[in-house]
Structures are given as structure tokens and as C-alpha cells.
């Protein structure tokens, strides 16, 4: 079992899936429009996806990777040889890595409502020939999962060996287990929950409020204008980013250091390293993300409540549906999706006598920990999948 040291050393790095492309496919073409949870129909829907590894002839080695709030279909490898960074979960996906592409067929799709190739608020409404903007229907995580299922149908995958995701990705993995129990052999739910805490909803709302307060947001109809609500989206990202870190990781990363100087200048400018870092994060983010998508996806996360959807308010009752063998992972310093929430997920599964394991990984990196290479994370996922893979016939 090869556990890499977790450093992504570029294309030449052994195990990398190398150069990859994002593909697109169309699902829910009329008259088979997708009925959304809000009651509206949507179709056709374009979905961006990437795959790594090969689907075996029995079609039983597929693993669906689910991205978080601002992620995309580009989970591993590089789009161009000059790319500075690989896909967002590259250290987990590749030959000999936890999601071993020598064994498994890995699929990652951009979520419905996203802005990286899948239909979302920035797409053109075929009925009006204009950008949807805020006329885009409200979404739920259930809707996102329904679209993923349509993608798998087109790829000819009946049943998933596993699915895995962190944060919102973990919530979707959970939704898969509840919505399509017979299609989900196993699930890996990382730094996640069955419902957001009011604290997490509060942070989302501050981010959304920053966006809609930006005069350039123009009720969401900014696509044909010169300027975009970059200030608002940038602030949303800065707030979000604080919630992804921990007190300790900020101490380690920045301390109270000043940027390029040693003394205060006693003026209302940015002086601390941490300030500059957050602004740089905000600036980078607005280059790659659509403000309306941010509004829709955070709202979909806030709405999610698996107990309400599947157990008439009881999470324990909801879990009775689950058939997947599951692995739940949390990180000690994650205060946005704290261990206590993962344990709630585990508790109901255990009470229902389901096959569930729980691991809490020591980390100072806060919620971001699932995106940062670590041996325990790689090892536990690798061990879980290895056993499933070795016992495939037995199940």
C-alpha cells in the first residue's frame, strides 16, 4: 500500500494522473426535464465532469468524488503542462494514492448551480436567451445529487463502489446514501454534517449579504455589464476563508507579523500579513467564481436537513434507509463542521446497526484539513477502499 508523502511535485510526480480534460454532457433534455425540489423544472442541464482511471468490464469499480462549495470537476491532474497547481484533491487521486486510479474509475462532476461548466445562474436560459441570473430556480443538495445520478446513468454505471467528499461534498455523499441506497455500496463522509449549524448559516448569510449589497450585483443581472460584484464576492470569500482556518493555523501561518515591515505606520491601511492574505484570497477567488453561484450554492447548503427530508425530522429514522458501508472522518480543529456534528451522523447510523466507522484526525488546519495532504487521511481512506476492493465478490 503506497502512501505518498503528499507533496505534489508537478506533472513529473509519480502517481499523478497527468494531463486531463474537463468533459461536458447534457442531461435532463426536454421533455425529460429535471423536477427540482422547489417545484420548478429545469432542462436541458449541461454537466462538466472529469474521469480518471478506467471503468472495468463489470462496471463495479466506480467512485464518485463530490466537491465542496467552491470546488469544481477538476479534482486531479493538470489541464496544461504549465499549470501552477493540480486539481483540488490531487494528493488523494492517482496511481498508488488513496483513490488509486490503477484500481478505481474516478468521476468528479461540477455541481448543479456551479460556474465551472455545469448549468448555473450564469448559464443562458433557453427560453429567454439571456443569462438566468436570479431567475435561476432555487436549488437543493438533493437536486445536485439527482443530476449526478443522471450523469452516472449516461456513463452506464449502475452502482458505485464508493463516493467521497468533504464539507458540502460529504453532505452530498450522505444524500446519495439516503436517496439512492441501492446504488451506493459505500460512502466516505469527511468534515461534514447532516445539517448546517446556525453558526455556519450565519457566516453564509454575511457572505451573501456582502454580495447583494455590492451595487455592481444589480439584482444578479451583471453578466452583460462591464463590472461584476467583485467587492461583495471578495468579502464573502474572506469571511468564508476565516471559517476554514483555525486559531492555531492562523497563529502558525501569520502570527501578528506585519507585511514587509516591522513597525506600525499608524494609518488605515492593511499592515498585518493576515489582512493581506485574506485580500489576496478574495481577489483570486473573484477571478474564478460567479457571485450568483455563491448565493445559490450556499443557500442550498443552508437548506439541507437530511433528518427532515428522509426521517420526518428524526435523523435516526432517516438512517434506517442507508445501505452503504460508511466511513466518517472529522478533524480536531474544524470548528465550522466540528467533530460533534460528524459524531451525530455516526450515532444515528450506529443506532440503526449500520456498518459505520469513525475516525477523528488530529490537525491544526481547521475545516480546510481535508484539502491538505496528510498521512492519516490518505491511509484511512486507502484502508477502507482496499478492503472493499479486495472483498468485492463477497458483498
Amino acid at each position: 500500500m503506497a502512501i505518498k508523502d503528499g507533496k505534489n511535485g508537478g506533472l513529473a510526480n509519480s502517481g499523478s494522473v497527468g494531463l486531463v480534460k474537463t468533459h461536458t454532457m447534457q442531461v435532463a433534455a426536454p421533455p425529460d426535464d429535471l423536477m427540482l425540489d422547489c417545484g420548478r423544472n429545469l432542462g436541458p442541464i449541461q454537466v462538466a465532469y472529469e474521469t480518471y482511471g478506467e471503468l472495468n468490464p463489470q462496471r463495479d469499480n466506480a467512485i464518485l468524488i463530490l466537491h465542496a462549495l467552491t470546488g469544481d470537476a477538476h479534482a486531479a491532474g493538470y489541464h496544461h503542462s504549465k499549470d501552477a497547481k493540480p486539481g483540488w484533491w490531487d494528493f488523494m487521486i492517482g496511481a498508488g494514492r488513496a483513490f488509486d486510479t490503477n484500481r478505481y474509475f474516478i468521476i468528479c462532476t461540477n455541481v448543479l448551480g456551479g460556474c465551472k461548466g455545469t448549468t448555473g445562474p450564469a448559464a443562458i436560459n433557453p427560453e429567454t436567451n439571456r443569462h438566468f441570473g436570479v431567475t435561476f430556480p432555487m436549488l437543493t443538495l438533493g437536486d445536485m445529487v439527482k443530476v449526478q445520478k443522471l450523469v452516472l446513468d449516461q456513463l452506464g454505471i449502475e452502482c458505485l463502489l464508493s463516493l467521497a467528499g468533504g464539507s458540502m461534498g460529504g453532505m452530498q455523499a450522505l444524500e446519495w446514501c439516503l436517496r439512492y441506497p441501492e446504488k451506493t455500496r459505500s460512502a466516505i463522509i469527511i468534515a461534514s454534517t447532516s445539517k448546517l449549524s446556525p453558526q455556519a448559516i450565519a457566516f453564509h448569510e454575511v457572505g451573501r449579504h456582502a454580495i447583494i449589497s455590492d451595487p455592481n450585483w444589480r439584482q444578479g443581472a451583471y453578466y452583460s455589464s462591464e463590472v461584476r460584484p467583485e467587492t461583495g464576492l471578495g468579502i464573502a470569500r474572506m469571511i468564508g476563508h476565516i471559517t476554514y482556518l483555525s486559531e492555531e493555523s492562523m497563529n502558525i501561518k501569520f502570527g501578528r507579523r506585519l507585511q514587509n515591515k516591522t513597525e506600525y505606520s499608524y494609518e488605515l491601511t492593511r499592515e498585518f500579513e493576515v489582512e493581506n492574505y485574506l485580500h489576496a484570497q478574495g481577489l483570486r477567488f473573484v477571478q474564478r467564481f460567479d457571485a450568483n453561484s455563491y448565493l445559490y450554492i450556499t443557500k442550498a447548503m443552508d437548506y439541507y436537513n437530511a433528518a427532515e427530508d428522509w426521517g420526518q425530522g428524526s435523523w435516526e429514522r432517516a438512517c434506517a434507509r442507508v445501505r452503504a458501508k460508511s466511513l466518517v472522518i472529522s478533524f480536531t480543529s474544524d470548528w465550522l463542521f466540528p467533530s460533534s456534528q460528524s459524531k451525530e451522523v455516526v450515532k444515528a447510523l450506529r443506532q440503526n446497526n449500520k456498518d459505520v466507522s469513525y475516525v477523528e484526525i488530529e490537525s491544526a488546519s481547521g475545516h480546510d484539513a481535508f484539502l491538505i495532504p496528510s498521512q492519516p487521511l490518505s491511509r484511512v481512506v486507502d484502508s477502507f477502499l482496499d478492503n472493499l476492493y479486495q472483498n468485492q465478490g463477497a458483498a
Partner: protein
Amino acid sequence: MIRKRLRENILLSDYDSIVSLVEPETRVLDLGCGKGELLLRLIKERRIQGRGVEINQAAVIECIHKGLSVFQGNINEGLDDYGQGAYDYVILNQTLQVLDRPDVVIEEMLRVGKKVIVSFPNFGYWRVRAQYFLTGRMPRTLKLPDEWYDTPNIHLLTIKDFKIFCRERNIQILASLSLLSTPSLGAGWAQFWPNLFADEGIFVLARGAP
């Protein structure tokens, strides 16, 4: 190294005894399941449905690699989630003496399990008594190998202590095994006078009639 191997052998013989005490096709919760050897044997030899609780992460990951369902956490957390009689057996193997409140844990185990299996090193074993008596120092044996300052064993007990404990708490002893891992005197002695000649006790318990 030799000591370590001896201890592992002792553990394995414990497993034999415990496996023999578990009815087939039952539901078992193993508290402090380590790397899952006992659970795996119970699954293979008794076709049980097993779950584990273990605090050590490396051990939990080994369990997961074996395909076992294990919760990383302490024993109390491992029990809290379950309702009354959720398991046919709750097992606590060689761990009783390291707990903060063994009495509370046993009560909890009796709530969650229809039956409880507990094993512990017997502090009444004659070698232990002899060492303490003759040398005036804290005894160290194969089953109690640590120094007084680094031992995890903070609640040492004898087989007799345990029987009295059960009587006082209205806990029924359904079966008991007295083991001698180094049969220098012959195993028969351990059966004849367990509190003196057995170095380990294994008990199957149930809540007594009210």
C-alpha cells in the same frame, strides 16, 4: 521483545476463551477492540455481527483495513450512542483495570448488552501476593508488567473483589473462567482456588433479577 511476544500469546489465549463463551450469530460490541483480532475471530468462528470501539487511531485504521466497523473514541462515547439491550454481548477485554470508573462502565455495559463479558488480571494471584509480601515492592508479572509510575492499571482488583462487587450490585454471574497463562502449577489449581492460582478472570454477566 520476548516479553512482548509472550504478552501477545497471552492475548491470543484470552481470545480462545472469549470466543468459546459467545453464542453464534449474535451481535457483539467490543470495547477497546485494538486491531480487531478478537472481532475478526468472532466473525469467522461465530458468525457474529461485530462492532468495535477503540481510542488508538492506528489500531482503528487497521480495523478498517480488515473491513470492521469501528468507532474511534473512548469507551463511554462508545456506549452512550446505544439504547438498552442493543447488543447480545458487550465485551471488555483486559481493560477494566485501566478505567477511571470501572463501576460506571460495567453498569453502562449491562444496559447496552444483554450479556457482558469482562476479563481482567487477577491481583490475588499467588505470584503477585508473594512478590508484594517478600520484596515489599509493587508486583510486576507477565500480565502486570509495568512500573508503578507508568502503569495504565489504576484500579487493580482480585477475582474475589469482583465477585463481591457483582453480589453487591445485583449482577448475575452467568459463567466464569479462571485462567493461568503460565501453568507452572498446572491448570487444575486455577479451577480449584481461582483467586490464588489464576492470573486472570473472565466473567459473563447479566443484570440480576430485581
